[in-house]
């Protein structure tokens, strides 16, 4: 096994997903197969190979730090499932 049910349940919690027992079993089975396949990468020696995280050589795209018009508050809030005209409202935290 490349991944266990317990690991899937743990990672699901980290990713803020609630999975039923059935879903955990199903996802574990499918991920196990996928992880088995990606292990193929270990056939290649990558010692001293610099990782690529970005396809183009762009570094530090700076811009001037100036105030510009932004989305008005009401428009920014408009898609909130629950809001009070000033802020998004969520279940009580403290």
């Amino acid at each position: 096994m490349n991944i266990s049910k317990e690991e899937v349940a743990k990672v699901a919690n980290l990713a803020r997903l609630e999975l039923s027992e059935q879903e955990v079993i199903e996802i574990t089975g499918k991920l196990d197969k996928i992880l088995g396949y990606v292990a193929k990468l270990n056939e290649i020696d990558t010692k001293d190979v610099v990782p690529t995280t970005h396809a183009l050589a762009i570094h530090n795209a700076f811009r001037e730090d100036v105030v510009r018009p932004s989305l008005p508050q009401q428009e920014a809030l408009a898609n909130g499932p629950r809001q009070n005209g000033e802020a998004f409202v969520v279940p009580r935290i403290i």
Partner: protein
Amino acid sequence: MDYPGLSIHALKDLLVAKKVTPLEVTEALFARIDTVEERIGAFITINREQALRRAEEAGKQLERGEGGVLCGIPMAIKDVVCTKGMRTTAGSKILEPFIPPYNATVIDKLEEAGAIIIGKLSMDEFAMGSSNENCAYGVPKNPWNREYICGGSSGGSAAAVAADESFASLGSDTGGSIRQPASHCGIVGLKPTYGRVSRFGLLAYASSLDQIGPLTKDVRDCALMLNVISGYDPKDSTSVNQAVPDYQSALTDGLKGMTLGIPREYFGEGLDPEVEAAVKNAVEKLQDAGATVRQVSLPHTEYGVAAYYIIAPAEASSNLARYDGVKYGMRDMDAATLMDMYKKTRSKGFGDEVKRRIIMGTYALSSGYYDAYYKKASQVRTLIVRDYQQAFAECDVLVSPVTPTPAWKLGEKSHDPLSMYLSDVLTIPANLAGIPGLSVPCGISRAGLPIGLQIQGAHFQEEKLLRVGFNLEQRLDMKGRKPDL
């Protein structure tokens, strides 16, 4: 006159000559949609009233001899690109109520050029899929044979253009999501160089791989659309500040002096003989047009899928963290605590494939596994980049199949994610390297399903891709072939 069947450039000539008005064209397009959409299912949202109003305005502009290069041309867009005031779902239940408060830069550019956005097109949820079967709003069918997939993730875009329900479309391509459905639906699709087109307003899947590009009826339209959407955007710091050439001007040049590389790894096991024959025939036509051909090698091709299915889910797990029920989209209103709200909202809002990739990505990035998965995949990505650098030292462009097989039957791979992933083996490497890739129709299988030729080039070599594509199109005479609907 069958207006919906026309290319953009043919329609443009009629509009400018005042032989037809944008309103007549838009009405004809809606009539076409009313006739075929029930059988295709390409759309998620249609906005008739706004489209007709804009068509009238475009008509007045043309009357005055004004208007941009797309003035009065109606089109629909993949539902992953934000359209101000027009619902944008990414094919997901979690964004069912989302009305973007702003336009993506590409939408601003299309509208400045005069295009009329008529609606939003079906896609795999958050662009995760190769068949468009992972969509919360129904599964579009392949217009050539409705028992087959139209491809994905920009399946609705490809199906709509192939079925003459849209004059062109925009899609997004993270591992082949423009080129593959274009190939399966017999149209032209281009993934531009990473950074050529602004991603501002594109709902992110895997940010280091995603790129927006056109799906069109022919290569000339593709060049035209690319000119409209390309260019540096201060709102996307990964867009590149490099001059945009006139992509249409070099199309008609022949291929004399151009070297086509045939990557031998793209013709390996699993390649359908009909696809192979169609591609070989296309290569011969390109030689007739003056190109020379040589064999090249991209030795790490077979590792692309494995690297991709670590890198893309890793980036997705981070990008999709924003869908938490707070700022937009749906929320589970019954949850009593914040944590419960996050979990219930995300579990009800995301479909199976999206959950799977979030978990895969979170796992690959988690403590203790990072080096074994993410770092390893990023190193293999470097080797794939080097393969291309070596190949492009020997040739101008690479020609190959887009996919190993024509479209498969609906449902055939939907229960086996890995077999679906492996179908992207020939398109994924271009995303990992950030290079452009073009899909152009090059044949039709005995079962009546389209086959595409993929043309890849070095960074910012779109002109060469389009020139090769145009030459092929001229010599194959496929343009008259349309699905029978």
